[in-house]
């Protein structure tokens, strides 16, 4: 408190000196003495404080927008999307074409190796052509389709299908044919496993 009082007293002295000086000046200098501090104050405020304040406001707006979007996203989801989440489980965002294709074949190989089952594999590429998906991802989306054919016991076949579908590297199984072979007591399976990939290289 004492310090503040002392500071205030010193400040008063300085102001009094300034006023005294001001009163002695000519009119032009008086105007300059008013204008220069105002201009200096404006420059300091505009380039210093207000720029910082504007940056903080922009950052605040970004955070607010991000929070608002994340808060309202679930309520805006359509029913079929929700049931799709339940039915398909977690999915990964599309990877690059090379990465996606190698992940797809690697994942297939791992599943079949686990079940000690041989399989036939044909790989082809196809364009998805979904504008919604492409606008969300920001680039065109292709799909690498693995045409699979194998024979296994009914339980092994169903396990393989389930594991293939559960693999995050496989986005969808679009076509499935099961044929029971009474002679061998096995099921012949043909399916198309898809991995969705980005048109241009690299992840988004």
């Amino acid at each position, binding site marked *: 408190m004492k310090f503040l009082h002392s500071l205030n007293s010193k400040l008063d002295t300085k102001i009094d000196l300034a006023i005294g000086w001001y009163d002695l000046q000519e009119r032009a200098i008086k105007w300059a003495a008013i204008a220069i501090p105002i201009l200096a104050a404006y420059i300091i405020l505009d380039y210093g404080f207000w720029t910082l304040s504007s940056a903080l406001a922009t950052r605040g707006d970004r955070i607010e927008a991000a929070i608002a979007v994340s808060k309202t996203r679930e309520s805006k*989801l359509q029913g079929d999307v929700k049931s799709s989440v339940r039915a398909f489980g977690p999915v990964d965002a599309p990877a690059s074409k090379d990465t996606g294709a190698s992940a797809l074949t690697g994942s297939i190989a791992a599943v079949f190796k686990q079940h000690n089952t041989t399989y036939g594999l044909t790989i082809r590429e196809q364009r998805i052509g979904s504008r919604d998906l492409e606008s969300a991802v920001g680039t065109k989306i292709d799909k690498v389709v693995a045409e699979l054919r194998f024979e296994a016991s009914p339980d092994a076949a169903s396990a393989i299908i389930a594991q293939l579908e559960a693999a*995050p590297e496989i986005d969808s199984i679009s076509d499935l044919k099961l044929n029971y072979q*009474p002679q061998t007591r096995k099921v012949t399976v043909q399916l198309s496993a898809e991995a969705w990939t980005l048109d241009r290289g690299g992840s*988004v």
Partner: protein
Amino acid sequence: MKPSEPITIDRSLIGIAAFQRNSWNLLLLQGAGERARVLSASSYASIGEVTEALHAAKGADLRIMHPTSATIVKVVRLPMVAASQMKQALKLQAEGMLLGATPACRVGLAPIPDVLGLDERQGLILVWPESAAGIVDRGIPSTAQFIPEPAALLPFITSDAPALIADRASGTVLLGLRGDNGMTLRSTRENTTDDATWRASVRGSLLESLLNAGRDPATAANEADRVLADAIETQDGFRGISRSAISAVCGMIDFDASIPVDDQKWWNTWALLVGAAIATQGEFAGLTELRREEEHDAPTITDRLIQRYSNRRRSIKAAAAAVLLLGIAPVLFGWMRVSVLEWKLPSELSAFERQQRGVDRRVAIYKELANNGMPVAKMLGDLACCTADGIELVSIHLSKNQGLVLRGTARTQSDAAGSDIVARMVSQLRESKIFDAVTVSFAPPDARGIYVFTLNAEIEAPTVAANIPEDRDWAVKTFVERKWGKLSADETMEAPTTAPVAALPTNPTNPSTTPATAVTPAVAPPTAVVTAPDAPSAESSSTPTRGIGRRVETPPTEGATGGATGEPVTGPASTAVAIQLPAEFTDDELKAMSKEQARAVIGEIAMARKQPGLEPAVLERLNKDWKRLLEFLKSQS
């Protein structure tokens, strides 16, 4: 609501109050008419009671006696001019004396009527300095005016005898007398601790004043002694007012009949108040209207603000503070806002935004999957649940574009023909809400009554949870449970192959005898599949990440897949009243059994073991046969 009565104020009524140690004396004066009239004189405990009494008498003009100790007394000489000019001259003298140090409200001015000569008169200036507190009481209304004691003494100053007020507490002595030089009014202070010395000092002051007024020394001494001898002791000191002066005052004012004017004691207390009352009415009225503060309208906030910041130093400080505030406040506010918002964020902003973009992409993927994908494992499970007993599926084709295409056979059951069973399946497919537009085509039944059929259906809502009743849901009730009811703990422990997939044998040589679900349970709920013994890896034995894992949520499957539930058997078979015990069989008889026969016997043993009150020996034999049958079935599969 009763209208309030208008407030009536008698403006001619004046209340003059004086503080006397522990009480207040109030003299009510009616000032209207030719002569003023004293209406009452009474004492009150507080100034609040005084104001109440005044208000009760419909008076609003309150005057408070102001002590001499807080008053500067000055008698000045004035030129002999017109009355208005005289007042102006007096004012000029007062301003010259005070140099603007005291507000005008604290200065009382009045010309003294005595004429000193052809060209001179006297004027009296009474000043209440701001440094002097005077009578301090929180209850005194702000509108109250003050009458200095010297003004009240004026009516008692006659040519015959001086008037004297001596206050022992403050040491103040007020003297008033008339002489050759006109009126003398003198206020002095004698600060001595000793009472006798003080009295001597008072006498000295009085003597001095008398000599100054032109008395010869002997007369002055006699007069001083006389005044002091006749002085009346009061609470605060003593008062010297001659009887002739009181008589003269009685002629200046009227008294109410209730006031004991003839009583000298009454005058001891009320003389000064009567003098003040006379002063308010005559030429000395200007001396009786002192105020503590200037009377003015209450300033508005704007007035105060303008007044306050008219100071250049303060206005410069305020401007500098405003500039700082303009700079700092937005930054501070922005920083606080960002801090609060960042506190709400689960992670750093860029990471959160990246994560949100990832979520948006996933939502887009789910939308795409909802439109063009199908969860095949889930759909195979739903299909299994819709397949009626008695149907054997040979081929399944699931395609988003082509829908569902099934080929299979339907065998006549005890309760329904093959075509009816297919019709039941069609109905169940429709009820599931997964499939729609179901059509079926039959070939004529063969000699054994087996229908070969082809079923087509559109895939309506592949991702929707199927509407499957519990008794048809493989995830809730296994094939074994459907067939023989819930198994006890030891049965499930001994029968790891009772999982839906592994427990169901297929007969390649005789398809017609194969249970209708020989193929369909094989693609039944993925959980059942991945928990089967032939998929023992950690990945496959965990909960699947895709498809509808209903199997996990249903307690019965735990027992069926090898979990030791330990729950009592409560299946329908346990409620059977009379179940025949199956006969013992030899190893040869066992080898001769077909699978169907063995399964039938195992069912009988299961029912029999649930009967209450079985002898331990019988139970042991049944358990033993149960294990033999299981071993046999295992070896057959």
